[in-house]
């Protein structure tokens, strides 16, 4: 009666055998590595018995009972909890990038504890997790408030989460820079340390994790419906927004409870579900189960590595968060090779909620931005606080003030322009509103080189740093190109690759930060964009570079208009797709490297400026490029001026201020957009 396309008898796909085998192997290795240092002193049986008892007159046995066993237990517990939370998050949002880390929950928790440490230390003594839970809820509350009207559309939620992560991270940094003496401790905590000396934390954590896990499992069936997309899920009677919201809250509680106890254990919640899916967990039930098991094994392995590194590293503490990042990076890269179909995940809306304000004339908008920029330059050159009061520098004296105020201002503006253009290029190229130099890890590559330079203690001067950072950005981009070539530079794969690079950078940074001291605060200053380090020749070099690249960009406007139509459409119109993407990526990397050296990797001007251009009514590529460049320049010019005067005679890094100002703007824009 029916026409059947395939006559092949089909059997139900079964769970591939490699999944249990690989996970068992992971656990075996982790357990073996963890117990290895003890086996010289105790038999395996005795060591196993350490989980519930100890022999009083045998010191290693006591040590194992109160240090090793609780540490193993808590690592497994947290890993399982975060793995489950990550799998649930990915199902809620239908997005392989989703995890407690990318939703801003962990940054929120960290922020909460930072505030509590600096201002109400008594609260921490009273209850260590209250502050973290409040921070996590604040972060997710912001995300939910911003995306409520859009029915938690997956792309928007991740976007809001990432912006909030950056924003809260920047706030964190601002406080830490102003109160540097707290730095070391907070960073060790912030980087996730699982060191235990009794069973109390584990016994406190156990019931909470169990209750939250059961609650998550009870939501399993409605969550499975989300796979059919919003329309079908609600047609089947699931209250989509409610299910998503409820499950998100559970994820927040799970992450905050963990963060408050041991700090940020980043990327387990991302890596575990990715690995489980990669190894063949197919249905929701399988994914939840295997993500949980994988998370436990992963964190145990990571924690063991951290413990070993600490032992080898002469007592300087290596936090577990660092090693999770080191393990998480490669897994995300593996995912890049393995995950098909990330272009359109089930349940994901095919198009991101677009900013589609009415078009406005480019000349008008560009003119206004230009005028604002000139005004900012004039104010920045002329009006500044002195030792006693604010005063105007007359134009005739500007040539004297130039040395102090000129180069840094110029560098800031140019870096902003470069980031604005690079961001527009990336967003257009990937058709992804989350694409930006910051999020693709190109800035991260540059930063990683800087971290290594600081770690090795080499003093090669500003010029050497410039070269090194450029090389880092280019290497990051090269790696990205190699990885993404298989997918012909498709959008989500690029983002995943970038995320993996960012993970590596993050690991290095945490390592440096955990050591505290002057090295850390120097690095922090650079990370958050200290324009006062820029000299005049550097600024002029930057000018030449940005002008040259800007001119080149006029050549790629049309290919850039074609690419978002999809590879097949673009190539059928005669565009050599892969080569065009390569060229665009190269230009992007040079622009990004130039900007990163000046302003640090975290300003997220490259994310905001293109959005700003769209909100200002510039929908076509050329117009968006021009306006985004101007907006980026203006943003950093203002940030640079404020950085100079706000805490005069001290200075704040202007990248930090740009992140704060830009983050506020972006959140406002997102919520306004939702109201349409």
């Amino acid at each position, binding site marked *: 009666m029916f026409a059947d396309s395939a006559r092949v008898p*089909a059997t139900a796909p079964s769970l591939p055998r490699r999944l249990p085998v690989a996970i068992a192997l992971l656990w075996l290795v982790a357990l073996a590595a963890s117990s290895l240092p003890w086996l010289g002193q105790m038999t395996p049986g005795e060591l196993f018995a350490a989980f519930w008892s100890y022999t009083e007159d045998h010191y290693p046995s006591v040590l194992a009972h109160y240090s090793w066993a609780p540490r193993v237990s808590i690592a497994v517990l947290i890993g399982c909890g975060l793995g489950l939370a990550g799998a649930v998050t990915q199902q809620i949002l239908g997005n392989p990038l989703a995890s407690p880390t990318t939703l801003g929950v962990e940054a929120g928790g960290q922020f909460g504890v930072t505030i509590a440490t600096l201002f109400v230390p008594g609260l921490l003594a009273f209850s260590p997790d209250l502050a973290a839970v409040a921070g996590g809820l604040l972060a997710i509350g912001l995300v939910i408030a911003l995306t409520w009207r859009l029915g938690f559309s997956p792309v928007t939620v991740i976007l809001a989460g990432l912006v909030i992560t950056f924003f809260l991270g920047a706030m964190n940094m601002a406080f830490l820079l102003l109160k540097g003496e707290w730095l070391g401790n907070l960073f060790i905590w912030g980087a996730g340390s699982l060191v235990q000396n009794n069973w109390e934390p584990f016994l406190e954590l156990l019931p909470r994790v169990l209750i939250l896990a059961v609650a998550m499992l009870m939501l399993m069936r409605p969550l499975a419906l989300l*796979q059919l997309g919003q*329309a079908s899920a609600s047609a089947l*009677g*699931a209250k989509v927004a409610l299910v998503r919201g409820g499950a998100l809250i559970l994820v927040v509680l799970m992450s905050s409870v963990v963060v408050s106890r041991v700090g940020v254990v980043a990327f387990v919640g991302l890596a575990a579900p990715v690995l489980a899916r990669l190894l063949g967990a197919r249905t929701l039930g399988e994914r939840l189960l295997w993500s949980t098991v994988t998370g436990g094994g992963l964190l145990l392995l990571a924690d063991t590595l951290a413990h070993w590194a600490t032992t080898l590293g002469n007592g300087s503490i290596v936090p577990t968060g660092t090693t999770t990042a080191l393990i998480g990076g490669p897994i995300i890269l593996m995912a890049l090779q393995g995950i098909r179909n990330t272009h359109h*995940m089930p349940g994901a809306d095919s198009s991101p909620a677009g900013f589609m304000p009415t078009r406005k004339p480019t000349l008008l908008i560009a003119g206004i931005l230009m005028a604002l920029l000139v005004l900012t330059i004039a104010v920045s050159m002329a009006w500044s606080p002195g030792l006693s009061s604010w005063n105007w520098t007359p134009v005739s004296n500007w040539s004297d003030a130039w040395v102090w105020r000129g180069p840094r201002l110029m560098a800031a503006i140019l870096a902003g322009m470069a980031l604005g253009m690079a961001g527009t290029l990336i967003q257009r190229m990937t058709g992804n509103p989350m694409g930006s130099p910051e999020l693709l890890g190109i800035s991260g590559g540059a930063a990683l080189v800087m971290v290594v330079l600081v770690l090795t203690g080499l003093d090669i001067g500003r010029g050497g740093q410039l070269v090194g950072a450029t090389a880092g950005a280019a290497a990051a981009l090269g790696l990205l190109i190699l990885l993404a070539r298989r997918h012909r530079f498709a959008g989500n794969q690029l983002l995943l690759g970038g995320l993996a690079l960012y993970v590596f950078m993050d690991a290095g940074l945490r390592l440096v930060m955990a050591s505290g001291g002057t090295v850390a605060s120097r690095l922090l200053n650079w990370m958050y964009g200290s324009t006062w380090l820029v000299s005049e020749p550097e600024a002029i070099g930057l000018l030449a570079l940005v002008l040259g690249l800007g001119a080149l960009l006029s050549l790629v406007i049309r290919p850039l208009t074609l690419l978002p139509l999809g590879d097949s459409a673009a190539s059928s119109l005669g565009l050599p797709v892969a080569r065009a993407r390569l060229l665009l990526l190269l230009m992007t990397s040079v622009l990004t490297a130039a900007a990163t050296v000046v302003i640090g990797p975290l300003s997220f001007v490259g994310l905001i400026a293109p959005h700003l251009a769209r909100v200002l009514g510039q929908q076509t590529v050329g117009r968006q490029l021009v306006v985004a460049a101007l907006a980026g320049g203006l943003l950093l010019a203002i940030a640079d001026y404020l950085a100079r005067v706000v805490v005069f005679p001290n200075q704040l890094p202007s990248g930090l201020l740009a992140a704060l100002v830009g983050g506020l703007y972006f959140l406002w824009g997102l919520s306004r957009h939702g109201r349409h």
Partner: protein
Amino acid sequence: MPAFFEVDQLAVRLGDTAILHNVSLAFQEGEVTALLGHNGSGKSTLLKTLARQISPSHGEVLLHGQSFRATGARAFARTVGYLPQHPPATDGLTVRELVALGRYPWRGPLGRYTAGDQTLIDQAIHDTGLARFAGRAVDTLSGGERQRAWIAMLLAQQTRCLLLDEPISALDVKHQVETLRLVHRLAEERELTVIVVLHDVDLAARFCDRLVALKAGQVVADGTPNEIMDSGILESIYGVAMGVMERAPGQWVSYVH
């Protein structure tokens, strides 16, 4: 007996644009109705409103004589099933797993699937001729089979009404006819109320009891195929000069001049 759906002075606005205004219609139980109209005439919007995917800005829809807003989400899903125009990729779900999701409105988040549920699922798979594909991943099926898998899910849902948004627009002629014949047969066997958005007038006239045409958000024609398949009326619906031939009773051919 009240009509299954009663639409009373319905208006829908999206932003500043009025998509539907002043639509009043009644859909009888057991009737197969086609919604016709050119692109942008509001037929999909009407269907989505009936499926509660969009809430009306004015007017009321009555389900069995009661306001349909009062019904709970799952209770509504036990009465009305909706198939969106572009069902998403299903990420490795097998046909049977997809169809089993249709039992959600009846069992909820925690209720156990009984043997009766399994029978209904198997029955739905059998009725749509997918038995041999039950273990295959939906994503690996051809377009027509995938469409049937989704319809099987709606059948497992055991609703009294199916709302189908252009179920055949991506299929070739053979699969188009097969799908509509399936819908028609199921509607008869299970006495379902079916409202289906279609582009092909001839197929609509062949397989549906009633044709409703929309234009610029208003009902411009409503009647049996016999009444609607008239060159004058078709011309007023589509705004193109058209002619109609009746080749045999119940089989019309329309053409463009």
